[in-house]
């Protein structure tokens, strides 16, 4: 197992190197002068030259890359061209909002997805099976942002049950401890703020969780169907185990392996959804910030956000691989 971990860890190095190279070359691939692009049409030659020097663009390319890597290794991700704030500080201000939304969405997706998958597998070819599998396919085909708009229309505009946008009502204030409003409000015993934060989360979480839910449901169904054919399920039945015991204790545990893997690997699609969901619901997270950075051609923000997210993504994939190898000895022994 140890040699597998080391081997897998070594493999991440060229990937990380490649990502930094890609992110670094972004500025240089942009047509025209990046400094002029950042400063806009009204900039004079002197200010462009100053910014070029400040960004290190007047140095040879390999030197620029070297400096870039050196700065990164010191945790220096640069400053936002727009607000002049440290990118890392701004990132950390917004990151908890995206994490909270993604976690609640994933929770919703896992509970409903696994539930629908189990029922579909157990009641195969029933109306429920067809219904939930069509629902799963529809869920994958649904534009997240449109689903968000429809949810806002019905539940916020027509029924007025839930707030239209944002993370918290203006009348509430939460002490920032973790940055996750649900957690912080509970830690400070601020129950009214907790309910308000939860109400703000429901619609975006449903919108964001629908695609993962659809994928989990399909995966659980097919995995459960496979497992239910196994000899040990027949044995369990023959022993006189109840239907509940057979499904939840004998089958589900064994059927979960591919489902757990897919949940880990869905982080990427969850983030993609988060960018769109945050824009629809004006959710103050990373996605909305990134899109604004693209409008404003704020390259330091785009570069650093891409890099940080890619690193998180690589780490999560690494952990998922390890977990998978841990559960499945065939992988680590091969």
């Amino acid at each position, binding site marked *: 197992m140890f040699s597998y971990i080391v081997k897998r860890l070594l493999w991440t190095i*060229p*990937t990380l190197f*490649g*990502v930094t190279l*890609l*992110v670094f070359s*972004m500025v240089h*691939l*942009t*047509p025209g002068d990046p400094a002029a692009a950042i400063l806009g049409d009204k900039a004079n030659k002197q200010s462009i030259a100053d910014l070029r020097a400040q960004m290190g663009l007047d140095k040879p390319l390999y030197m620029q890359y070297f400096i870039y890597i050196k700065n990164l290794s010191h945790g220096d991700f640069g400053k936002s061209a727009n607000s002049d704030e440290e990118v890392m500080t701004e990132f950390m201000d917004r990151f908890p909002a995206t994490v909270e939304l993604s976690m609640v969405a994933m929770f919703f997706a896992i509970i409903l997805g696994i539930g629908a998958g189990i029922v579909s597998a157990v009641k195969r070819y029933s109306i429920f099976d067809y219904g939930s599998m*069509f629902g799963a*396919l*529809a869920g*994958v*085909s*649904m*534009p*997240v*942002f*449109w689903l968000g*708009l*429809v949810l*806002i*229309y019905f539940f916020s*505009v027509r029924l007025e049950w839930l707030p*239209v946008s944002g993370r918290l009502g203006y009348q509430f204030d939460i002490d920032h401890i973790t940055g996750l409003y649900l957690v912080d409000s509970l830690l400070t015993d601020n129950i009214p703020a907790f309910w308000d934060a939860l109400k703000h989360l429901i619609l975006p979480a449903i919108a964001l969780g629908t695609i993962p839910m659809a994928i989990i449901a*399909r995966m659980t169904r*097919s995995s459960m*169907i496979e497992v239910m054919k196994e000899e040990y399920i027949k044995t369990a039945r023959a022993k006189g185990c109840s239907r509940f015991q057979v499904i939840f204790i004998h089958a589900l545990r064994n059927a979960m392996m591919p489902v757990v893997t897919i949940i880990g690997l869905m*982080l*990427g*699609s969850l*983030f*993609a959804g988060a*960018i*769109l969901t945050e*824009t*629809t619901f004006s959710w103050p997270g990373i996605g909305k910030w*990134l*899109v604004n*950075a*693209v*409008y404003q*051609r704020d*390259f330091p923000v*785009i570069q650093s*956000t*891409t890099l940080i*997210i*890619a690193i998180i*993504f*690589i780490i999560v*994939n690494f952990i998922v691989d390890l977990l998978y190898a841990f559960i499945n000895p065939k992988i680590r022994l091969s």
Partner: protein
Amino acid sequence: MEQLFEFIKQYKKNKAAVAGFIVVVLLLLTAIFAPIVAPYSPDIQNLADRLIPPMWDAKGVSSHILGTDDFGRDLFSRIIFGSRISLMVGAISVGVSLSFGLVMGIVAAYFGGKTDLFIMRIVDIMLSIPAILLAIVIVSILGPSLFSAMTAIGIVGIPTYARIVRASVLAEREKEYVIASRINGSSNIRLMFAVILPNCASPIIVQATMGFASAVLEAAGLSFLGLGAQPPTPEWGAMLSDSLEFITTASWMIFYPGVAIFLTVLSFNLMGDGLMDVLDPKLKDK
């Protein structure tokens, strides 16, 4: 010919896939004959007719079936013309992903060794960045436009095709017919593209169909973010983005472009599912 009949017979067993195919054909016809099907030009503004609800609403008029937008443009006509853009985006993006992915996958698998390692490393790096993020990076380099969105979606799709092609070619590479052809003196190019590739077509066709669906979805997403098609292009995602501020006053503006995206993507997915059943049943349920 017999194979084709057998294929159709098998495909017809999946009713949902047939429905998907019919919608795709209708969509294609709509896109081709858009100027005939659409009652108005998609760009003609008529401020006197702004924000008219659909015809079944009490305030609706029969001349504007799905109502009008904030510039008085006919929504039905804009959605009809939008089908052209979505199909074009799907075709071009899949074309870009497929052509590069195909060459990368086949070269990696055929030559193996360091070539394989190098190409698959590039693929791994591309896959280590979430697709939409990579697309946003590419759009921010090229500047927001429909062309940038198509290019970005095309590039982002390359690794998936490269992996699928590589896996299929690896399975075929050592088969007897390939060895026989090599002994007969076929060149590497001929072996790769004329001998091996046709036998790897099934998973590629399935992936291209599914890829078409996700390209349409991603393009709509980028346009919704303002990073793809720019106004006044009648692109479905951009239309939804415009409708955001009218969610309380003109709800019809948010429904129909979304229904169009949903139906298009769903139909291609259903078709892909049906093709998978027939061409590559082993892939099913993976």
